[in-house]
């Protein structure tokens, strides 16, 4: 499919996602009010204070996961790689559990509590946990030289941290629910401060990824060839890992662990528009933004007036979609 069409389609879908995301919810809003609320901050507080930050947050988190997934798939030359491969998710969950543990007693209404006083601790700990897990994996792998060792170290760090998280959760029954809610991913708590932080992570993390896209292309020919083409592999891989980890950790810290977006989006876009990372990285960011807004929309309406965690929706939708991709690959031989 021509890439211009894909871009046009993604931007059109993003616009639709924005409008629907703001219009749909517990309170139905007429379109005139939706548009007025988007144009004038004071026109409609539901639009501007509640729904718009949530939709923008979904876009930013989706963009982070899509771009990081594409970067990891390129770096590890593996279409099954995802943003959490090097331990970010397990590290974030452990950080969140530790944060909740340090804060101490939890009310059953953990959600409101987390966003009330002292709430900053959990995202900060989750962020540090995610970054720390990747750092540990890189150290255990003996640097970024051997890509396979990086994957193995990421898996080891991830399972050890998951074990520790489980231990922390079991110490306190309330904590099971809180950490569990966190690991399922949730966009319900995203407000303007979270949107600003997410935008900052992306502003720092996305440009290096986009600038190194041609290096990722060269890596697809193998590390020997990439080296012979003049790339300094160590710095290249290190910058890719740092940038992808920064945006993943930011997304996980603000929204919890949302699965399948970073796996499925780059995969689908590679099939549609090819594997040139100068296309695939920005397109995956855009595609991730679109997908997560729609997934969050479903999370909000499927069990109305209650809500599902968006991570549940992406996992339920993403699993079959992924099987479909595998099935089509096999059908084509």
């Amino acid at each position, binding site marked *: 499919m021509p890439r211009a069409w894909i871009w046009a389609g993604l931007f059109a879908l993003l616009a639709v996602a924005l409008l629907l995301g703001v219009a749909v919810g517990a309170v139905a809003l007429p379109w005139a009010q939706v548009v007025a609320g988007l144009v004038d901050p004071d026109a409609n507080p539901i639009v501007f204070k509640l729904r718009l930050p949530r939709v923008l947050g979904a876009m930013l988190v989706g963009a982070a996961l899509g771009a990081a997934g594409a970067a990891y798939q390129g770096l590890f030359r593996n279409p099954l790689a995802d943003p959490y491969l090097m331990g970010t998710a397990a590290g974030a969950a452990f950080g969140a559990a530790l944060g909740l543990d340090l804060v101490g007693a939890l009310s059953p209404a953990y959600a409101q509590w987390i966003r009330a006083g002292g709430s900053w601790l959990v995202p900060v700990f989750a962020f540090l946990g995610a970054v720390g897990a990747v750092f540990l994996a890189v150290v255990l792998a003996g640097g970024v030289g051997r890509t396979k060792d990086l994957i193995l170290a990421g898996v080891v760090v991830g399972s050890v941290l998951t074990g520790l998280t489980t231990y922390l959760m079991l110490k306190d029954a309330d904590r099971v629910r809180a950490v569990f809610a966190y690991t399922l991913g949730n966009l319900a708590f995203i407000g303007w401060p979270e949107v600003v932080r997410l935008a900052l992570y992306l502003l720092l993390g996305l440009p290096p990824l986009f600038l190194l896209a041609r290096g990722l292309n060269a890596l*697809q*020919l*193998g590390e*020997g060839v990439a080296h012979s083409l003049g*790339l300094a592999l160590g710095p290249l891989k290190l910058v890719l890992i740092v940038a992808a980890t920064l945006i993943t950790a930011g997304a996980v810290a603000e929204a919890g662990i949302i699965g399948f977006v970073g796996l499925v989006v780059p995969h689908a876009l590679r099939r549609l528009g090819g594997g040139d990372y100068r296309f695939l990285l920005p397109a995956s960011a855009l595609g991730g933004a679109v997908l997560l807004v729609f997934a969050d929309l479903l999370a909000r309406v499927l069990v109305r007036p209650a809500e599902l965690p968006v991570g549940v929706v992406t996992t339920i939708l993403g699993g079959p979609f992924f099987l479909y991709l595998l099935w089509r690959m096999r059908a084509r031989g």
Partner: protein
Amino acid sequence: MLEARGLSVFYGGKAALRDVELRFRPGEWLALLGPNGSGKTTLLSALLGLLPYRGEVRLFGKEIRRLSSWARGRELAYLPQDAPVPEGLTVAEVVALGRLPHQGLLGAERPEDQEAVRWAMEVTETRGFAGRLLSTLSGGERQRVMLARALAARPRFLLLDEPTNHLDLDHQARLLRLLRRLAGEGMGILTVLHDPNHARVADRALLLEGGRVVAEGAFDALVPAFLRLYPGVRVLETAAGPVLLPGVEA
């Protein structure tokens, strides 16, 4: 001039290459021969700077580790034996990656880049499938595309690791003719060769054994050394010179 002086490579304290001396110039074709595990690929990798080594590798007099990686990439191109097949990249996109050392990561495509890519696809006869995905080509076609990618840099030296592997006899002949032609046009060619008979078309061959160079010279002059290293081999004398064959009684 590409040269190695006292070149040694160690894997965990064990020498895979020991005190190798090697010199060749643009326009010359040098073949590396030797039994499995004799250090041919290790030598190629060390010349490319892919491995840590002791001793010196000099490109036109400059130690290769002191060159910028882009400068090295413009002069030395590499065709590995088995490269992974990239997903979702077309033949034209792969060949264009050969211009990376001239463009850098952010450089735009200039007319000379397009000209080099066009020339590389012309000589490797790969223009016909420029728009196809590399993953849809046969092994032999892929090999030619990878060669086009290496040539697109217009390097002074081209280092190839067993380039005739996986090719049928006709394509082996075409590839060897192309390498001969490139050497004639002034490119230095270094090939690791699995079949020693192919070294006949090279200018010179180095015979390695256990990480050391044990013989050096034109193919015909190396035949006695071959027979010593490969006891199972028979020599067939032909009008075109000696041919080495696996000695099996029918």
